[in-house]
């Protein structure tokens, strides 16, 4: 501290103006200079934009309904009208095979799936669900974990012991097994989740979002609680107590701003993790339910066509890899900018 003051004093002596920069601006500037991280962010935003433009693509460019069976439909290849389901189109030349990629954005760019639906449009729609669930569950998870961590770290004692042990139990439970247990129960019960007035139908995207948010709470809770514990003992917190600040004020306007950087570092990595988890659950058909589609469900649909029409399964996978990679790279960049010494680990 003294050194900083001396330096500032020296600068003042030389008549220079020391620009006041808050740590957030410094971090933002460092992140801005990290070209790889910025490129990843741009890629991610591009994927988000394209996915959310799915209805526009389906209705104005491709002119298809990606959720309706279209087994008798036709499309245009090289100016000729051809049926979507082609007789003997596969390697065995038996039965009907959907048309493969035409590489023409207006006419079944990536071909059709086994129901004759436009794969390209479905991948965009699927991206919308995957991103909504991924971003939504990561955000919900971080909010819940932060609030619980604030309560545990602030009150300490029995409250902390109870909450931390509860988190330990959820943490000890393997992620996929926990997700599978909850999902089977809620999704197969045909009427979804019902708690009091709250009723979420099984086909709602909220169900996978909440399930995924819940299972990752301990992964965010642990580092945040550790931080709350140290911050709550700092002098400024004591000063606030001495001024008679209420518990709520202490928690949310004194401690929270000082631990929020931990959460921000974790957020992109959590989005990467939740998108991967959503795709895995949907692949197991216990994530997003029909008629909705997500990248995971499309890969599942494409399993049967893998050897004849591989693009049905490959295209959504490439989207997942790009999105998750972008988030992982951005996460590294954010961590370097905010907290160079942080050693955080999120299991995929």
């Amino acid at each position, binding site marked *: 501290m003294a050194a900083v003051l001396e330096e500032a004093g020296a600068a003042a002596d030389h008549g220079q103006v020391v620009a006041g920069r808050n740590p957030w601006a410094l971090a933002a500037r460092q992140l801005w200079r990290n070209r790889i991280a910025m490129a990843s962010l741009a890629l991610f935003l591009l994927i988000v934009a394209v996915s959310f433009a799915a209805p526009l693509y389906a209705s104005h460019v491709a002119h298809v309904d990606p959720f309706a069976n279209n087994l008798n439909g036709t499309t245009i290849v090289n100016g000729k009208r051809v049926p979507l389901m082609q007789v003997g189109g596969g390697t065995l030349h038996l039965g009907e095979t959907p048309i493969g990629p035409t590489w023409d954005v207006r006419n079944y760019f990536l071909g059709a799936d086994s129901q004759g639906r436009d794969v390209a449009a479905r991948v965009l729609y699927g991206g919308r669900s995957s991103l909504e669930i991924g971003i939504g569950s990561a955000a919900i998870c971080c909010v819940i974990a932060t609030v619980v961590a604030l309560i545990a770290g602030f009150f300490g004692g029995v409250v902390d012991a109870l909450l931390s042990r509860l988190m330990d139990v959820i943490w*000890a439970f393997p992620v996929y097994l926990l997700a599978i*247990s909850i999902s089977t129960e809620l999704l197969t019960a045909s009427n979804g989740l019902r708690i009091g007035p709250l009723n979420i139908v099984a086909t709602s995207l909220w169900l996978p979002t909440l399930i995924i948010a819940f299972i990752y709470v301990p992964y965010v809770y642990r580092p945040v609680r550790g931080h709350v514990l140290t911050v709550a003992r700092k002098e400024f917190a004591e000063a606030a107590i001495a001024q008679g600040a209420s518990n709520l004020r202490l928690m949310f306007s004194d401690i929270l701003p000082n631990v929020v950087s931990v959460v921000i570092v974790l957020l992109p990595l959590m989005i990467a993790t939740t998108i991967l988890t959503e795709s895995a659950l949907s692949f*197991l058909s*216990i994530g997003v339910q029909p008629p909705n589609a997500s990248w995971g469900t499309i*890969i599942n649909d494409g399993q049967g066509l893998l050897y004849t029409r591989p693009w049905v399964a490959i295209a959504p996978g490439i989207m*997942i890899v790009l999105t998750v990679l972008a988030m992982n790279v951005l996460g590294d960049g954010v961590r370097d900018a905010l907290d160079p010494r942080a050693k955080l680990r999120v299991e995929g």
Partner: protein
Amino acid sequence: MLTFIIRRVLWTLLVMFAITLLVFVIFFKTPGVDPARQIAGRNPSPQVMQEIRHQFGLDRPFPVQYALMMKKIFVTRDLVSYSNQGERVVPEIAAATPATLSLVFGAAVIWVVVAIGMGVAAAVLKGTVLDPLLMIVALIGISIPVFWLGEVVNLITQSRYHDTFLFSWIPPLGYTPFSQNPLLWFQGLVMPWITLSVLYIGFYARVLRASLLEIQNEDYIRTARAKGLSERRVLLRHTLRNSMITFVSLFGLDFGVLVGGGALLTEIVFGIHGVGFLTYQSLTNLDLPVIMATVIYGAFFIVLANALVDIAYARLDPRVRLA
């Protein structure tokens, strides 16, 4: 050390109890769900429903229901699957275990060897262009969904390039027990091993590199160099050896998770009938008793693996015992 072990074992038992309770609550007490209907599978007759209600004590108080369920899973082991004509669940899980173990062991060997190679190479080559390159490869490995990678591998090895000399030796999808035909066992598992290990190679290479770079700044490394030890010896005997402490404890946890059912995506894609595959089959049949049992057994295995890792860690690093 002994008090640490006792404390750890007691905590493990408590966690196991909590997990069974959690699973029980999820499967029997979810609001708006009738557990008897869930257990019965698809289209049960009223008689079957009646029998299930009686068998699982669904008309009796909560603790009795819980005790009955635990008895069926652990003591009498006669939990039966209703969708599968009364097949006993627990022996089924035991029969599926060797396939899962074969898959996870092989993948573990690959990922440990390759990850150490990549991590050390990246740390040694820091400052050159190869370090970021290796780390990008690692990051890509972390970002690939394992089930999709498996499908791409299948597409290449089973279909598109199967008839070339590269992959013609790969047998059709499925698992051959080692006792039946060791060669076929090996050939059939090579691709699943590689697929499963990719994620962990990426992850461990990153962790190892970070840990190596951090340890390089420690005082005892400077001392080792000052003693005049060769760079190679410093790296192998001092830096790498200490990095291994984190590496080994992470390995124990991940290995436990995979054996406990975490390998299910790989098992499904490659048609390996292990524990994870069993869970998946019961998911598609809505076979609740099997899901419940595989989840509880899997979770138990993982909790046990965690406890063993912690005890081994405490043995290696005395500071942990006091925490």
